[in-house]
């Protein structure tokens, strides 16, 4: 906060949590959907357990499936995967690079308003499946 010349008393770091997981759209279908969801870490865990606390950012498409090219190497598939992720995360990145966002909190009891500078940063990316695709880890050989 010192680097950003912000008063720590009036600034709040807002960690962003992303959730990414593919799911089959039907028992007899080979098609899948991979939604990218986000929430804020400043929300209590009980709130984050509510689906309404999560925002759907978009869906990760498999480029090779769109183009009908299934002969891509794992490296090429990874690059495509990250290309789509980049597009989906652009708004989040713009929010992070745009600097502090002023947010007014209202105490419902007293009606008093508190202006705070919110600094958004990415905190973690959760995936039910292995996170190999995100960090580029090769599952084979980890043992």
């Amino acid at each position, binding site marked *: 906060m010192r680097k950003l010349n912000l008063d720590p008393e009036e600034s709040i770091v807002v960690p962003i949590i992303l959730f990414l997981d593919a799911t089959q759209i039907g028992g007899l279908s080979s098609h899948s959907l991979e939604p990218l969801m986000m929430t804020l870490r400043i929300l209590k865990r009980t709130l984050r357990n509510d689906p309404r606390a999560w925002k759907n950012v978009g869906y990760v498409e498999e480029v090779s499936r769109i183009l009908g090219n299934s002969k891509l190497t794992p490296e090429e598939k990874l690059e495509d995967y*990250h290309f789509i992720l980049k597009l989906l995360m652009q708004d989040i990145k713009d929010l992070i690079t745009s600097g502090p966002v002023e947010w007014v909190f209202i105490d419902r009891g007293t009606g008093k308003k508190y202006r705070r500078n919110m600094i958004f940063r990415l905190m*973690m990316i959760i995936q039910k499946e292995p*996170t190999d695709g995100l960090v580029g*880890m*090769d599952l084979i050989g980890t*043992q």
Partner: protein
Amino acid sequence: MKTRFADDPDHHCNILHFDDIDNMSASQLANISMRKIVNNAFREPANLFGASPYGICTATPPEPLHAVLLGIMVRLFQFFDANLTEKHWKILLEEIPFIVSSTGISPACQSILIVENSKQAILVKDISLAKRNTQ
């Protein structure tokens, strides 16, 4: 971290920085089971993860497959295996058909049971056949 260190609380983990990964060649990455991602979605902007130099490497919490199924569970069997003598293994292999049949394991699981031994891998393809042989 290698699975064999999964039960070592004093094991020192070398957490990779994003810059380390960027400066490594594809073959160097392959040595640590990593792949090269040229346009990593999490590389830019520099403050995406705040002041953390580790970036995506420490932003992905452990998931059940690596941490439990390929980690602690495998280590559990390795530890069990390392502490059994040949006599123990002989007794265990004789008892397995009875253990499996008496614990109500599903027929699908009964059809194949792999017991990994440090000296040899023993594949019992059909538990019911093994059960008949021991009766």
